[in-house]
Structure formats: structure tokens, C-alpha cells
């Protein structure tokens, strides 16, 4: 009678190894995709907060830019999922009549920055 043999431990381990490599690769792709989606979603939240703050900063008179609050004055509830985060504004003179206003949102180990240029229009606020 033909002898029925089972699989040896080495055979089973080899099969498991192949299976693990296939599933791990698939999972790695899945995780990488999730990470990128996460990064994109976080960036969108950060940019919404920055865009809102820009709307306020573009209306502050040119001469008063440095005296304005260095933290965001708009509501940052949209950034709640990124907590803990820091939302800051820095003003740096570029030339005699130009200032660069840089708005930053930092969270975890990431930072998103947008810089807008303000020009001294003599108080007309038209630019």
C-alpha cells in the first residue's frame, strides 16, 4: 500500500514564509497608501486653517503687521484632529516697502507653510 506522507516542518515553514511575504507586501502597500491619504487629509486641514488666517492677515494695515498676534486669530477647530499643533505667524521685511508674512502649522513631525507678500500701498489696502 502506498505510504501517505504529511508535510515536514520545513515544508510548512517554507509555505508560511511565502504566504507571509505575499501578505506583508500587500499590507505594506495598503499601509503606505493609508499614510499618503492621511498626509493628504492632514495637509488639507492645515491649508484650510492657513487660508482662513490669510484672509485676516491681508486686511491688517501694512504698518501694523509686526504688532499683530503671532498666533492664529481665526478659529482653529478644523485643526483639532492634528492636536497637538502650533499655528504661528511670522512677519519679515523683504525690502523697504515689502513684507513677507509666513503662516505655519506644525503638528507631529510635519509643518506646512504659506508665505504671502504684503506691499505698502499707502494705506489704501488695494493690492
Amino acid at each position: 500500500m502506498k505510504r501517505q506522507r504529511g508535510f515536514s516542518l520545513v515544508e510548512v515553514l517554507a509555505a508560511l514564509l511565502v504566504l507571509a511575504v505575499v501578505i506583508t507586501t500587500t499590507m505594506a502597500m495598503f499601509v503606505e497608501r493609508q499614510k499618503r491619504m492621511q498626509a493628504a487629509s492632514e495637509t488639507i486641514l492645515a491649508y484650510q486653517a492657513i487660508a482662513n488666517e490669510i484672509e485676516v492677515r491681508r486686511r491688517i494695515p501694512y504698518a501694523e503687521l509686526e504688532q499683530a498676534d503671532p498666533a492664529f486669530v481665526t478659529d482653529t477647530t478644523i485643526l483639532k484632529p492634528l492636536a497637538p499643533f502650533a499655528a504661528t505667524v511670522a512677519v519679515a521685511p523683504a525690502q523697504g516697502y515689502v513684507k513677507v508674512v509666513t503662516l505655519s502649522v506644525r503638528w507631529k513631525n510635519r509643518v506646512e507653510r504659506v508665505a504671502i507678500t504684503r506691499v505698502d500701498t499707502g494705506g489704501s489696502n488695494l493690492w
Partner: protein
Amino acid sequence: MVKRAHRSAGFTLMEVVVALAVFGVFLWIVVILTADMRNWEKRMPINYMTHPQISAVVSRLRRDVEDATQPYYLESSNGFNMSEKTLIVYRLMQAGTVETVVWDFSTEGTVTRHSFTSIGGETSKWTANGTPTFRITDFPIPGSPDSVRIQAFDKDGKLAIDQIIQPRTH
């Protein structure tokens, strides 16, 4: 010579334990990775900006408000009244004419944009479906009291869209 009885070869307990241990470690890694992702998903609102219809609503609304001209907003027009669910914008068009645009958010899951000529005839109607709950409020900015704030909440009530828009100088 005595013939050896047929031995059915199975796994020993040790073999099964080793194989399961290897697979168990692997499963543990998978569970850790997915738990991390689920945690993140719970914290984050739905990313509506990846939904074409919803990003179209936000873009068109932004354009309408940025193009708004005096008196910017109307209390009522063509049977609509300004509210948290209705925005009535008086906007300047490229040809130099004006039109009244009504953004109607009053129907859950639907956003409708109506545009009317200055004498009241409806010139276009555009509807977006599958939308979240929108809310329109004013957001006075010093030097720009006519700014509006558009917010949208996902089905769990998490704030997903929050945009402040102010009319541009023409």
C-alpha cells in the same frame, strides 16, 4: 520479518506550535498596523475635498463670494431668504453686468445654486448631491465686514470644511 504497520505522518505538537507561533507573530503585526489606522480614521473627519461634487460646491461658492459687489448680500430674493442654510450673493460678472446667486443648503444631502438676472429671471440651476451638512455664517474681519464662513460637518458631526471667504476688490 515483521512488516511495520503503516504510519500516518501528521505533525507533532511541537511542529504545530512553531508554525502557529510564526503565523501568530505575523497576525500581531497586522493587527497593530490596522489598529493604528483605525485610530487615525476615528479622529479625522471625512476628507470631502476628494469628493468632486463637494469641492465643486466650495470652489463655486468661493468664486461667487469673491466676485460679490455692493451690496454683496441680499436679505431676500426670488422667494429665498438669507439664513444659515441660504446665502444670497449679488455678484459682478465678466461682462460688467450683475446677477443674484442663491446658494440653497436647506435640503439635507443636496446643495443647489440658482442664478437670477437683476430683473429676476432664473438663468441657471445647478445641483450637487451627496453633500454633507453645510452652514453659512458671517465672519466680520476688520476692514472687510462682508466675509462669510462656510462650514461642513460629516455624519458624525466632525468639522470637515471651514473656509472664510471675503469679496475681492474689483
